[in-house]
């Protein structure tokens, strides 16, 4: 019991989020743990992206608790502070900086908003430089470092964005539909990439519609429906849950 408690990365309890009267999330409680890859599934409007918005500080909850490591109250912090705590996020549509080089994108990510004086002198720690090389290798863009990010293909942009998370070595990684719009080949590569993100010191959360993809990567699946937690467990368990089938899988 204590072991699993100390394992908690993000602790959500009694969370309510409303947009102009519309309840996006209602009384949601869940735990996201280190060392696991968690998939969050559910129909459109189930509150999946809203949950990520709350965890990353983009949206303020109406009530409820969101804690990192059971000590830091994320509901009171802004996006920047939360990002600096080591919570990284990949957005649904690729949002790399297209006017900058691939390498420059990773540089911005690894600096994490620190050291303006070094930035003015364009100085980068050698270990950061090496880390960027490693990550370029990992995301398969080693030879594209000097290319403008805007000229990459859709899949490459998605990988670059995952790379931008990876360089900063975050404790919590939130991925919003990482394989949307990808070819089968690209999806397969992304599965490998996400599997590499898994580490005992890291919690990985993936929002996805593609069930085969979820089955391949997720240790645990949480199903959201109309802002509430409908079920939680392994993919097989979730797939056989009659309520889940009714609202989501069956359709």
């Amino acid at each position, binding site marked *: 019991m204590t072991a699993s408690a100390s394992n908690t990365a993000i602790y959500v309890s009694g969370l309510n989020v409303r947009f102009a009267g519309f309840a996006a999330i209602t009384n949601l409680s869940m735990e996201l743990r280190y060392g696991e890859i968690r998939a969050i599934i559910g129909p459109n409007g189930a509150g999946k992206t809203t949950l990520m918005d709350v965890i990353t500080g*983009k949206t303020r909850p109406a009530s409820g608790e969101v804690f990192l490591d059971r000590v830091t109250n994320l509901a009171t912090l802004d996006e920047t502070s939360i990002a600096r705590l080591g919570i990284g996020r990949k957005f649904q549509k690729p949002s790399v*900086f297209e006017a900058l080089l691939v390498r420059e994108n990773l540089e*911005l990510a690894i600096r994490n908003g620190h050291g*303006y004086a070094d*930035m003015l002198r364009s100085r980068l720690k050698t270990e950061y430089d090496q880390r960027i090389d490693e990550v370029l290798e990992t995301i398969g863009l080693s030879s594209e470092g000097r290319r403008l990010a805007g000229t990459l293909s859709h899949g490459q942009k998605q990988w670059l964005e995952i790379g931008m998370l990876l360089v900063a070595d975050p404790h919590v990684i939130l991925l919003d539909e990482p394989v949307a719009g990808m070819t089968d080949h690209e999806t397969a590569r992304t599965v490998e990439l996400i599997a590499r993100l898994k580490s005992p010191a890291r919690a990985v959360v993936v929002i996805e519609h593609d069930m085969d993809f979820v089955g391949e990567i997720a240790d645990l699946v949480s199903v959201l429906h109309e802002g509430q937690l409908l079920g939680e467990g392994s993919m097989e368990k979730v797939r056989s849950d009659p309520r889940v089938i009714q609202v989501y899988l069956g359709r």
Partner: protein
Amino acid sequence: MTTLPETAARRNWTLSAFLSKWMEIGIVPVLILVAAYLPFAYFAIPEASALHMSLFGINLIGQIMCFALLALALDLVWGYAGILSLGHGIFFGIGGYLMAIYLLNSAYAETNVLPDFIQYMGTGGFPTVWKIFSRLDVTVLITIVFTALVAGVFGFVTFRSRINGVYLSIITQALTYALMLLLFINDVGLGGNNGMTGFTNIAGLRIAGVSTQIGLAVCSCVVLVVAYVGVRYLAHSSLGRALIAVRDDEARMRFLGYRTHTLKLIAWCLSAVIAALAGMLYVPQVGIVNPTIVSPQLSVEIAVWVAIGGRGTLIGAIAGAILVNGLKFWLSSQLPEVWPFILAGVTLVIVVAFGNGVWGTLKAAGEEANR
């Protein structure tokens, strides 16, 4: 086999590639040459020669350099940080007015005659605070600090409240108008609509003197060069890359751990100080400061120069300011009624035909040729 790469290399030497590659650095020696040429052109070259320049011409170049500084300042915040300020005239005005206060102080020290507007106010002398502006170096220093402070407070409040885009533009424009109206009031004590004039000397030199005026024009060129080198260094540094990232997707930068309002504030304050320096150089060259220096029209025009030249290129902003103002001085004396239509026409054609401005288009063509 060996001829292939060579022809490919030769094709790179198109004019656009050459210009976009080398003028970014080449502008520095060009401006230094201009600065060195000005005294030479007046004193050493006989009047009959076509290379001789009149004092009027030199004075014009000096003024245009001040406008180029303003454009450079705006390009830093607009082209790099994505903040379209339609109120840079405010900082230009702060520099101009504080310089004028210094110039009136030194005129009074020389002639012992108070300016008319001070006499009308019946206070019997300059306001006490004016005394700190009795030396040029102190005035420059105070102006830099004061401008950075004003810009800092405005920037802190607006950037922190996440006021962006057109809303910020409108606020800056409205503030410009408000400041102009304020300065029109005689009781404010800055000369009302007549402004401040009657300057006699600057740092002990006779202000209307030929060498002083040439010196000011040279000084404007030099300040432009220094500012360009400094801003280019910033723009091409990792900090400059971060500004571009803020311009293109500020929210994303927050999720990467950046305090985006701090980044914007750095660019904003630096830009304001450059604009104030432009104002300080401009006023002694035109010999007067009045509220039109903070007219909304001037502030919008700066954006037009930058848009024509190409925002986010620095050199394009400078070229735009020089081209448009050169054309303006020339045409507004020949065809004063037609000038506004020509400016509007040129602006429309360039914005529609070349979205990136003249320099931006040239640069893109150069990069294309290099591919």
